[in-house]
């Protein structure tokens, strides 16, 4: 088997920088609009009086900025850690078919250190804007803002424990990502099955750790925004969202690499398997979504159903369209389009669906964070699109840099031969 090296031209890199630049310009434009209180934010201002009456102050642009940065970072960090998860699952399952494409998920993990630093900084600087529970007065029994429910959660939701957990998640994820990557690269040089068996043991360890950290990180980073609310499905919900976006990212990257003349040995059979993954897990996400929704909707208990009220009728119906678009784009669309065998084997179909899913799950994370923080004053404007472009550009820079570091074909992978002859 011959090596394949990806070369990212200066031109391509400049495109990524241009993407970041456009994002910055849009973001600044959005901030100016918002600070001036006119233009695009006019509609949000309309509901101002009512929101103030409900006890909320007008949202400052810094708050909106921090929440945008936060949820984009959670989304892209998730896609990144799914890279490790995908490889670990393939190793533990003794999967042969994926050997040819394993360098793509391996490279996805390159964003993890960047995501970790950004997230830590965001929490240190903007935590009061993102998380209601970080306000000290909520825990002071003599304060008029004392909140017995949040005070009861102090053992878990406190500044230092939160920081320790965040550092631990990233440290563990990066440790395992690099450990697997190092093994894989040494295998390229030396060959033999020793690295493979070692990777299986590392992967098994990672899966145990990720089983816990995927849930707890979802509680920390997303669920704790709605501090009063709780859901035992939530860890799974965020994981399902990350997992299907990660699979879509892997599939899309494989197709784009293939269309640019790389990954020559990847054929319709590999795409078929990736397509099945995307199809199956978009249904899995829906299953989790519905399991969470149905019980809360049916029981109709105020402290539980408030979460869905905020997203449907509440907040002046601000998020209603996203709520339904979320279901259409993440379930109905992939379900109907990817159902047939032929669709899963065609690049164009997979491309359309994976792009839709990536946008759809970005909206999903938007919907998880915005109603609990910006309430009726959220929206999708220049700031949202700008921030997403900035993160997308940074993500692509680190991802493509990761891809260029190793041969795209893991030349000494014991299952490479099987992967080349994969046939479904």
């Amino acid at each position: 088997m011959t090596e394949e090296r990806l070369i990212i031209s200066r031109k391509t890199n400049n495109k990524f920088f241009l993407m970041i630049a456009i994002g910055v310009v849009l973001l600044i434009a959005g901030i100016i609009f918002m600070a001036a209180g006119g233009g695009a934010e006019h509609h949000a201002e309309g509901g101002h009086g009512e929101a103030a009456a409900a006890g909320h102050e007008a949202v400052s642009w810094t708050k909106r900025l921090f929440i945008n940065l936060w949820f984009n970072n959670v989304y892209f960090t998730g896609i990144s850690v799914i890279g490790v998860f995908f490889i670990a699952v393939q190793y533990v399952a003794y999967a042969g078919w994926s050997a040819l494409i394993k360098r793509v998920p391996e490279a996805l993990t390159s964003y993890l250190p960047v995501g970790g630093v950004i997230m830590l900084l965001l929490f240190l600087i903007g935590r009061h804007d993102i998380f209601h529970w970080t306000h000290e007065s909520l825990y002071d029994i003599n304060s008029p803002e004392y909140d017995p429910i949040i005070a009861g959660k102090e053992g878990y939701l406190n500044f230092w424990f939160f920081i320790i957990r965040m550092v631990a998640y990233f440290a563990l994820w990066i440790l395992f990502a690099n450990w697997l990557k190092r093994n894989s690269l040494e295998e390229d040089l030396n060959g033999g099955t020793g690295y493979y068996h070692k990777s299986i043991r590392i992967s098994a360890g990672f899966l145990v750790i990720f089983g816990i950290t995927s849930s707890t990180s979802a509680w920390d980073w997303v669920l704790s925004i709605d501090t009063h609310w709780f859901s035992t499905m939530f860890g799974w919900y965020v994981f399902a969202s990350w997992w299907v976006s990660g699979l879509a990212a892997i599939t899309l990257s494989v197709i784009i690499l293939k269309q640019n003349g790389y990954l020559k040995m990847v054929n319709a059979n590999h795409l078929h398997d990736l397509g099945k993954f995307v199809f199956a897990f978009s249904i899995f996400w829906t299953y989790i979504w519905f399991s969470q929704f149905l019980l809360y909707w049916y029981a109709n208990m105020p402290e539980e159903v408030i979460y869905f009220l905020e997203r449907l009728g509440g907040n002046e119906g601000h998020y209603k369209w996203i709520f339904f678009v979320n279901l259409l784009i993440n379930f109905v669309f992939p379900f109907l389009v990817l159902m047939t065998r032929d669709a899963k084997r065609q690049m164009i179909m997979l491309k359309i669906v994976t792009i839709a899913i990536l946008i759809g799950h970005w909206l999903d994370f938007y919907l998880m964070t915005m109603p609990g923080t910006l309430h009726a004053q959220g929206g999708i404007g220049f700031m949202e699109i700008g921030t997403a472009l900035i993160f997308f550009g940074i993500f692509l820079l680190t991802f493509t840099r990761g891809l260029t570091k190793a041969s795209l074909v893991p030349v000494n992978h014991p299952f490479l031969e099987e992967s080349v002859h994969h046939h479904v």
Partner: protein
Amino acid sequence: MNKKFVLGIYDDEDVLLTAIENVRAAGTKIYEVFTPYPIHGIDDVLGIKRSRLPIVAFMCGLFGTCFALWMQIYMLGFDWPMIIGGKPHLAIPSFIPVTFELTVLCAAFGMVITFFIVTNLKPTLKVRMLDKRSTDDKFVMAIEVKEGTTDLAALSKLLRSNGAIEVNEKEVVK
């Protein structure tokens, strides 16, 4: 009416696959190939088209969805409206689990029943065995002999030249 077959016996999977290709390329129509276990890729070599069963499954599933929704909406919304758990009569989210189950049930049963009908699989079905060894360790390629048109000597030569270890003739009573 009696049917007559020429049976080419093979003892190697790869030899069989190339033999099938060559025999078909020579213009001979293969009646059936009997193998002790499923062989990967034999459908493509034999030119068997993909099954249309998934279309049946989709249609049956769609029927199940529609039937379930109609049933619940008609029964609980119009025929005998009841308030359950303080919900409106047409509480669509609570209809979803039943709709899902009926979709799966109809798709599965529809597929199985269609499969039985299409393959004529029924308790009284008698399957004629052309060569008993095809259940053990040999692969059997059966070619139907048409009186007057089939050149038996040439066919036998074709099969042997493509690796058949034996070529037999067999007549079966219809």
